[in-house]
């Protein structure tokens, strides 16, 4: 697989504030990479660096094997879609799509052809003569993508393109984006802080925190094998339950609770005894009829029950700490009840309490 975008020891400071710190990232040709992280972690900054809208303090950016660190944004072969779409409000959709091309002195016939093609791909043929003000959010987003599409770029950059939309539309457009990626097979770099988007869209996800990449991996790796507590906590909703305790000899213990880690895949083949934190996802807690077959069984006190239709979220206590459990929507549990649950250590995550890294 060839490299599409390579970021080499990138540094970026605003005044005295270091926003990106010696950041390295290789993105494959045709990959859908999602940059995920909480607000202010530097996602947009990194994307703007790649686009050439911000100048790095140090380091290099390569696109398609060329060093573009100092190139102009329009010369990099990138297209960008913004959170607010940044459509030119006084131009029609067609004007929006063709403006960049006209500027690059592309012949008229060629422009028309490309606009028509993009409009077809995005199914906005009927909208070409409207102004952005007369479009719905989803249509606007498609036009914004179209603007990059017509320019026939190698890399698409998206900065939270869905976060202004309502939940239903977001779900639809997600699917559409995925379809588009399958069809176009361009490299796409996508910034979001919504994990559902990240999980569903990404080939690989880069979790960022404070200008660094915490983990880079497939959605499955990120979800099931988080490299550190930050990632583990960040991914998943409701978020993972953590219990700080002690690890020794293949057994995690905290107070009365004792969990033999049978079936757990250690990162290092052998893990020494130390302070450890175990993380268990609410949806990996075994309940109902299946408890009987669970490797470990524990009893918890139920505090609050939140029925959510398809699921029920149960707030309980385990080893003195709040413990969330996701159950089926049809499960009937009530507050103050005592509940027996099962835990499967092979689906749990174990971290070193000090370094916060996965064991």
């Amino acid at each position, binding site marked *: 697989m060839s490299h599409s975008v390579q970021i*080499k*020891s990138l*540094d970026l400071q605003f005044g005295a504030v270091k926003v990106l710190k010696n950041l390295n990232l290789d993105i494959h040709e045709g990959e859908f990479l999602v940059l995920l992280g909480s607000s202010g972690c530097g996602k947009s900054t990194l994307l703007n660096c790649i686009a050439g809208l911000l*100048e*790095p*303090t*140090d*380091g*290099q950016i390569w696109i398609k094997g060329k*060093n573009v*660190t*100092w190139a102009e944004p329009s010369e990099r072969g990138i297209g960008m879609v913004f959170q607010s779409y940044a459509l030119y409000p006084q131009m029609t959709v067609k004007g929006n799509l063709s403006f960049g091309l006209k500027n690059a002195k592309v012949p008229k016939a060629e422009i028309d052809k490309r606009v028509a093609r993009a409009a077809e791909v995005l199914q906005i043929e009927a909208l070409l003569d409207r102004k952005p003000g007369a479009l719905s959010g989803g249509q606007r987003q498609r036009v914004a993508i179209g603007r990059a599409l017509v320019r026939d770029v190698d890399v698409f950059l998206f900065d939270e393109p869905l976060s202004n939309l309502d939940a239903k539309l977001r779900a639809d457009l997600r699917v559409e984006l995925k379809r588009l990626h399958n069809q176009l097979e361009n490299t796409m770099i996508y910034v979001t802080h919504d994990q559902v988007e990240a999980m569903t869209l990404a080939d690989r996800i880069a979790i960022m925190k404070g200008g660094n990449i915490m983990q880079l991996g497939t959605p499955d790796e990120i979800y099931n094998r988080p490299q550190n507590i930050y990632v583990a906590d960040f991914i998943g909703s409701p978020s993972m339950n953590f219990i700080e305790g002690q690890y020794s000899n293949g057994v995690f213990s905290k107070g009365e609770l004792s969990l033999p880690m049978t079936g757990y895949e250690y990162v290092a083949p052998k893990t020494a005894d130390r302070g450890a934190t175990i993380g268990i996802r609410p949806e990996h807690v075994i309940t109902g009829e299946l408890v009987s077959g669970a490797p470990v069984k524990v009893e918890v006190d139920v505090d609050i029950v939140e029925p959510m239709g398809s699921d029920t979220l149960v707030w309980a206590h385990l080893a003195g700490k709040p413990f969330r459990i996701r159950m089926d929507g049809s499960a009937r549990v009530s507050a103050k009840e005592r509940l027996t649950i099962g835990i499967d250590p092979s689906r749990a995550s174990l971290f070193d309490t000090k370094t916060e890294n996965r064991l």
Partner: protein
Amino acid sequence: MTDAMSGPRGAKPKKALSRNNIIVYGTLFVVAIYYALPLYVMIVTSLKGMPEIRMGNIFAPPMEVTFQPWVKAWAEACTGINCDGLSRGFWNSVRILIPSVVISISVASVTGYVLSMWKFKGSEVFFSMLMIGAFIPYQVMLYPIVILLREAGLYGSLSGLVLVHLAFGMPINTLLFRNYFASIPEELFKAARVDGAGFWAIFVKIVMPMSLPIFVVSMIIQVTGIWNDFLFGVTYISSPDRYPMTVQLNNIVNSVQGVKEYNVNMAATLLTGLVPLVIYFASGKLFVRGIAAGAVKG
């Protein structure tokens, strides 16, 4: 990896004076000179003696600095037989300015408040009429207003003058306030109503404290307009010992006594302009902020 890192890296080296920067700063400086020149000329001239002025170069700094013109402008310049310069008018201007500014801002802000939060049937119609009124030349209204004021028994009094300033400042100030208040979230207004605050309580306790910038803008516009006003002050105030400073300025500048005493004229001009200038220089950023909210939206 070492050879991979060869080639351009880091921020693009910038020439300290790129072509763009030269154009930007160059233009700004040239334009700034055009704007600053008159002030400079006023200041240097006001510090020169008449012989030096007659020698010619208005841009040359004074060879011999003299404050005589300032003294003369302030205390000695003659109008008719009164030779007490601008000093007589200064306090009059202040006395006219303060009530006029306070009252016209109060009224305009309340009106803007009505127009943005308590619209009633027809309120927009009156507002449109007000805006068209902004285009009427003052001179046209001179006599009708005299008659109005006479009928109201206010002719010649300070309250009459305040009313006149109120009327002519109303269109632009109301527009500014209305637009600014329209940018205050409606929910705040609703919250206050649920909290049992009425028309005035909402205005005084919620809206006003949030609107400092627009009050500053309005104040500056009113202070400038009212302070610089000559026609209304002299027409609707009926006693010469209450004439505003601008009347004295007009008298000094227009009473040609032999050769024009440019230095005294400039000093007088500067003295008269001092109040609005100081307010301008002091308010700086707030003004832009207020303008931003008051003029751009809406």
